[in-house]
């Protein structure tokens, strides 16, 4: 039991370390509330060198520069959206890990919905067709009835 508790504490400690990201102590702001804002904001900004990491996670030099820039602008009293716009003006919307809803990203945002609707429509058409066959197309024609009668009614004793 004690070992399990120790293992659990160790695991939690590891997770806490991982959550610290790439932010170095000398980069952090003194005010914890502002630092939390900076962390929150930089988790959403793409490191353009590694491209699939946020600047909060990345050890790249450029990510550090952008982390410092975010903190500097926070200290100057800029709002989160102002800082985001500042970066988008220079690096394009690609710098945001959460792509904005725009004409150029319509396919990205609406594509899955479109596929879902198209698939659903296809499914409805298919199922309706099937139940129509079941409702009226399944009755035997006269020829078929006569044939079954003949096959079953042969009476050779084996059925």
């Amino acid at each position, binding site marked *: 039991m004690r070992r399990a508790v120790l293992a659990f504490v160790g695991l939690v400690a590891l997770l806490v370390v991982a959550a610290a990201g790439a932010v170095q102590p000398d980069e952090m702001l003194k005010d914890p509330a502002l630092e939390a804002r900076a962390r929150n904001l930089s988790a959403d900004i793409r490191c*353009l*060198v590694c*491209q699939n990491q946020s600047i909060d996670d990345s050890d790249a*030099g*450029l990510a550090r*520069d*952008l982390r410092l*820039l975010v903190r500097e602008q926070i200290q100057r009293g800029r709002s989160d959206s102002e800082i985001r716009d500042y970066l*988008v*003006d*220079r*690096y*394009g919307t*690609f710098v945001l890990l959460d792509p904005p809803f725009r004409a150029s990203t319509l396919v990205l945002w609406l594509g899955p919905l479109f596929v879902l609707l198209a698939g659903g429509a296809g499914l409805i058409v298919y199922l309706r067709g099937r139940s129509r066959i079941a409702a009226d197309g399944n009755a035997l024609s006269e020829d078929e009835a006569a044939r079954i009668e003949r096959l079953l009614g042969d009476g050779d004793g084996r059925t």
Partner: protein
Amino acid sequence: MKRALFLIPLLFFLGLAGYLGFGLTRDARVLPSTLIDKPAPDFDLPPLLPGGAGLKTADLVGQVSLVNVFASWCVPCRAEHPIWAKVASEEKLPVYGINWKDKQAQATAWLKELGNPYARIGFDPDNKAGIEWGVYGAPETYVVDRKGRIRFKYVGPVFEETLDATILPLVRKLREEK
């Protein structure tokens, strides 16, 4: 008409395959610059070399020029380096340097070793101007027209092929603009 319905999934697949196939031909690591056709950003960098010329926004107005982002730690910069001396002398095209995230002593030694083709070099050790320009790696090369607007950006080392096929034709076109 109803018979052709079975073609829909096939057409859908071909369309999707074509779209994704097109995506494979593009280099996803190269970002289009947001600054194309916009004036060069406000910046003012001190000279890298003692006694040399620094680089600021106003220096880019008046003639077509290239701005090359380089660093001594950047291997592809070393590979492309000889082309700038050639451009500067043969094309009479000013090539300006932004020495990016570098150390002064190392950058100076690097230029001493390889030669200095740059008409002006701004020293940007802490990425102040780099962020304004949207630089995200070295080397990067920008073509600036005579009004000081950025007209083209190339990411990665420039070799003869890119120079002759893309950059120089654009420079000639821009030189004819009033």
